[in-house]
């Protein structure tokens, strides 16, 4: 097909807004709100300007938009070294132990602030019963900071009443921004509903950040940001694999459907090194509604079995050990999936989680009122963070205290903060750890001035909401330090007109060609973003180990899939967008494609099955510690659009 050009012949040229700042925070989620909060404290006294850009409204943007029912990383009475061991084990032996250990040193401080800011945290009552955040306050229980006892679901997890979690954290983040705005005298430093499409590099030093460009989904405006340092705080990558819903329900994913891999794509395009992009998270979830299982397994002590009533993690352990040896006994999240999948493939489904037995067992010792409270806790878990699952219960006449629920492993996600570790390769703290893990600024990527945190920072999972916030704060402090060391404002080569033409091309294409046919959806001159996404999802599903192959792939399947991805990359320049909303979808899908290719290329490179239950290399079914107990890193050339994947050393810092 003819290449497409945009000389604004068919659409109105957007207004071009150029905004100069020192720190640019891209995203307004848990990490970026932490950055805004911490950076204000260090930057404002020095007149250093902080600006945040979020594609949505900070109150309810990112993964925590709906709320959460637990804070999954709170060290409390435990210690950082044990946390490293836990994370290392869950991530199959390979993790950046400096980053994980570092995180454990800061994370509780953020949790304490959340409580200060008004987040209700469950506490233990006098008889060891659970009190919700309001009951605890009424009973005069001290805050966590003051020694209050949280209700621990697991060793690292505590329960909260988290419906407004993001509203609260967002309010504090916005307060930090506002304090900085006042201190620096700028007119505006929070831009909501602006989607960033790419980071701009310095015109003389392509390994350095210089700004970012995006557009408003509300007004016909192009936004060009100039900055000294930028944070990628755009969360993980969702819906780049075909999900299990087939139509209306495709927006229902476990992780937030609006996070589209911007972190990984923009990082890669800016030249930042990626790490462990083969890693993915395939959470076992309550079927269809994607209700999380953590509270059910850890707090309510529910058991899951196959249709024969067998605990698949017991009955399949011997079979699993054949390939995965010791990794089976130090069981982690992917291995639990693996043993479930063995039974699903064998036709021993449906796999069920016995909520009924769990609640009845807990109820044995409870009076009526306490039992009511327990039932409310069970529902709150979903009503706080996965309301659809409560809807699925109600729609199927399923009361969790009466009947079990089906579990299902989901489609794959990429993320760096939950039980996964895809992301950008960042510098560690520097006060310990090997020299090759430190290059000056904690959480800086390999691009000078470009930082990341939360889902963006790779090889260091299990941060969760609290750790993402804390890591954002660490990054914020580092960014101010970087600014102080690098006071000159960089410049980029792209002209405003070039950027406008590039960003708005899909709208020009639509305006130019849509009249050619009587249905704007079916037109040989272009492709609508939704179809790009469907094509991507199908390729990933079928060739890169999605649900429909039970997560199986191989060198030959990947090679085939990559050849289809190549054509999709050629075709995405033909996307057409009817309006700004669809333009958003177009660029989201561009990000998904880059992130997806990274995923496929990394899986192809790593010739072993490091994460059974997340994906399988049919041609290398075992874990191969001999050759692959290392990081797999990559760089991307945005001009040739090619990845180069290579190994980096894993250093063990915390002994077994």
């Amino acid at each position: 097909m003819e290449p497409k050009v945009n000389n604004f012949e068919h659409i109105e040229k957007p207004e071009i807004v150029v905004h100069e700042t020192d720190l640019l925070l891209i995203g307004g989620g848990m990490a970026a709100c932490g950055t805004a909060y911490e950076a204000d404290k260090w930057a404002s006294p020095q007149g250093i300007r902080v600006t945040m850009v979020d594609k949505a409204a900070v109150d309810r943007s990112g993964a925590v938009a709906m709320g959460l029912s637990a804070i999954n990383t709170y060290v409390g009475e435990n210690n950082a070294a044990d946390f490293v061991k836990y994370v290392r084990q869950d991530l199959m032996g390979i993790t950046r132990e400096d980053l994980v250990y570092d995180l454990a040193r800061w994370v509780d401080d953020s949790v304490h602030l959340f409580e200060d800011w008004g987040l209700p945290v469950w506490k233990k009552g006098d008889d060891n019963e659970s009190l919700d955040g309001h009951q605890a306050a009424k009973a005069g229980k001290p805050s966590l900071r003051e020694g209050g006892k949280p209700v621990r679901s697991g060793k690292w997890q505590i329960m909260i009443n988290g419906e407004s979690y993001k509203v609260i954290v967002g309010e504090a983040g916005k307060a930090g921004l506002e304090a900085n705005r006042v201190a620096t005298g700028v007119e505006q430093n929070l831009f909501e509903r602006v989607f960033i499409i790419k980071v701009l590099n310095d015109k003389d030093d392509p390994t350095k950040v210089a700004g970012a460009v995006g557009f408003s989904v509300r007004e016909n405006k192009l936004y060009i940001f100039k900055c000294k340092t930028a944070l990628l705080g755009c969360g993980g990558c969702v819906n780049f694999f075909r999900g299990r819903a087939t139509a209306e329900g495709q927006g229902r994913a476990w992780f937030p459907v609006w996070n589209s891999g911007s972190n990984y794509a923009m990082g890669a395009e800016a030249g930042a090194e990626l790490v462990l992009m083969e890693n993915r998270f395939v959470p076992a979830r309550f079927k269809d509604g994607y209700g999380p299982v953590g509270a059910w397994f850890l707090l309510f002590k529910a058991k899951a079995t196959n249709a024969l009533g067998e605990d698949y993690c017991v009955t399949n352990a011997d079979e699993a050990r054949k390939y995965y040896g010791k990794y089976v006994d130090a069981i982690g999240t992917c291995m639990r999936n693996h043993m479930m999948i063995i039974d699903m493939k064998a036709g021993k489904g449906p796999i069920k989680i016995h909520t009924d037995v769990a609640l009845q067992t807990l109820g044995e010792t409870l009076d009526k009122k306490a039992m009511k409270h327990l039932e409310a806790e069970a529902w709150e878990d979903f009503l706080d963070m996965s309301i659809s699952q409560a809807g699925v219960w109600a729609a199927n006449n399923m009361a969790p205290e009466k009947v079990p629920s089906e579990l299902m492993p989901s489609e794959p996600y990429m993320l760096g903060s939950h039980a996964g570790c895809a992301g950008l390769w960042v510098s560690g703290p520097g006060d310990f750890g090997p020299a090759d893990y430190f290059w000056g600024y904690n959480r800086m990527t390999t691009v000078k001035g470009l930082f990341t945190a939360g889902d963006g920072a790779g090889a260091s999972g299990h941060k969760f909401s609290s750790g993402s916030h804390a890591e954002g704060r660490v990054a914020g402090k580092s960014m101010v330090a970087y600014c102080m060391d690098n006071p000159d404002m960089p410049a980029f080569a792209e002209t405003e007109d070039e950027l406008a033409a590039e960003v708005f091309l899909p709208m020009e294409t639509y305006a130019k060609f849509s009249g050619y046919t009587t249905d704007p959806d079916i037109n040989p001159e272009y492709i609508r973003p939704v179809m790009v996404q469907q094509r991507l999802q199908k390729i990933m599903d079928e060739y890169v180990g999605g649900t429909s192959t039970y997560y199986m792939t191989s060198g030959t399947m990947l090679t085939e899939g990559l050849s289809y991805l190549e054509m999709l990359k050629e075709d995405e320049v033909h996307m057409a967008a009817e309006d700004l909303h669809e333009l958003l979808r177009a660029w989201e899908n561009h990000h998904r494609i880059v992130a997806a290719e990274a995923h496929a290329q990394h899986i192809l490179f790593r010739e072993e099955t490091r994460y059974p239950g997340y994906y399988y290399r049919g041609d290398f079914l075992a874990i191969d510690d001999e050759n692959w107990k290392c990081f797999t890193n990559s760089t991307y050339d945005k001009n040739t659009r090619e990845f180069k994947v290579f190994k980096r050393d894993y250093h063990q810092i915390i002994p077994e």
Partner: protein
Amino acid sequence: MPSFVITEKCDGCKGQDKTACMYICPHDLMKLDMDSMKAWNQEPVQCWECYNCVKICPQQAIEVRCYADFAPLGAACIPMRGTDTIMWTVKFRDGMIKRFKFPIRTIEEGSLSITDGVQDVQVDVSKIKEQGLYTQQAAGVTYPVPA
């Protein structure tokens, strides 16, 4: 269960600059039809069912109907979000009703402080390259390093 707007109830947020539902939807789904001055979900297939539009609508005009590609008909989860608690009414397919009330915050929206208590400190910029978040540095927390 994508969100839907009850025609009768929506008043288009009285022609305000931006409607509440458009303001809040994290996925840019809610849109105001300028002819009818009523809102609608422009891309139900992308709806996460986060209920933020439902919770924010001043007219209680928005509800959610379970995703029809996998959920049977007739159920509903209906929130009523107050200043410090949220009330949920869960209606089962068979008509059974369950009601729950949960805390949502302990400090009123808009009134949290980032300069109170432990936050009430001036950072020492010269220590920016030392370890520790500003609160921790101020409190003199010392950092473990691995043995």
